[in-house]
């Protein structure tokens, strides 16, 4: 199968947006307001934290909020000097969305947390573990969610075996990103 025809190609997967299991997006936004726009999206790898933060980013911008989206991981770290420079540029009207808060050094995080209290309109982060900021929402996945996403990505006439999906979800410990990559490889073998 050509990469462009693979239903699990990265660009197709990226179009899948966050799906709420319980609370709705409106409820989340209300909660965010109640938390004075300071909170953490918490969850394990591949549970949708970044997707949800991106969705929030788009909604907040659409509502006229000024935002600054920062992405940090081991490959794109945030050295302390860079952190200080970013913070010095912040305006009190800006809402900071920080993806990967637990990937920045403790000293930089400390600086970030304190500085944004006074010098930003809010701070929303993603983190693998709770405790950096009050938890806004905990993300998790289920085999049912994986099935829904796979059904949307493949045509409905090509449903992947539910047994395979249950097994994938278990083996990848709920990490939907790696589940979908394995499905990419399975489909790629199709010639």
């Amino acid at each position, binding site marked *: 199968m050509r990469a462009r025809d693979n239903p699990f190609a990265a660009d197709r997967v990226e179009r899948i947006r966050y799906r709420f299991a319980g609370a709705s997006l409106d409820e989340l936004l209300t909660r965010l307001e109640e938390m004075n726009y300071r909170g953490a999206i918490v969850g394990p790898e591949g549970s949708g934290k970044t997707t949800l933060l991106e969705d929030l980013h788009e909604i907040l911008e659409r509502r006229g909020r000024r935002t600054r989206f920062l992405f940090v991981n081991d490959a794109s770290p945030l050295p302390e000097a860079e952190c200080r420079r970013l913070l010095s540029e912040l305006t009190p009207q800006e809402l900071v969305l920080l993806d990967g808060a637990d990937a920045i050094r403790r000293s930089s995080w400390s600086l970030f947390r304190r500085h944004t209290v006074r010098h930003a309109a809010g701070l929303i982060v993603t983190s693998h573990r709770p405790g950096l900021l009050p938890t806004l929402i905990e993300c998790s996945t289920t085999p049912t969610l994986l099935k829904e996403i796979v059904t949307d990505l493949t045509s409905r006439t090509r449903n992947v075996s539910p047994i395979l999906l249950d097994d994938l979800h278990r083996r990848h410990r709920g990490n939907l990103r790696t589940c979908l990559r394995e499905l990419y490889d399975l489909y790629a073998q199709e*010639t």
Partner: protein
Amino acid sequence: MRKLSIELNDGKNVFAPGERVEGRIEWSADEDLKALELSLLWYTSGKGTRDAGVVHSKRIDRPGAFGSDTFSFTLPSGPYSFSGKLISLIWALELTCTPGKDTVRKEIVVSPTGREILLTGLAGQGRGQENQPGEFLKRILGVQHASA
């Protein structure tokens, strides 16, 4: 409601590197648009991170609520349109309007052979066969779904 369209001259959608890509764009909206941007670009699709390159673009400020315009871009010498199992490189014309995110895209093929280059492992694949599940894929489909 907005309507954007891209038409290529003579319906041609396969080009040789260095050739000119010419056509016409049309737009209509309920309100005046701020800007339109037409880009000639390539992007990758596949397993890994996406890559993309904009080769030419044409911006029209304050195009009004409706209208049309012609375009003519010269293709570079590469990259060629190609597909393997891990990555495809796709050429396209993309028309975007602001405000909003309305976009229309028209794919083209850029190749010296007149066809997308198929990498090893796909070279023998016939046209139209990619939508038919093969034996390997059938194995990962549920028995009850395999013939669906």
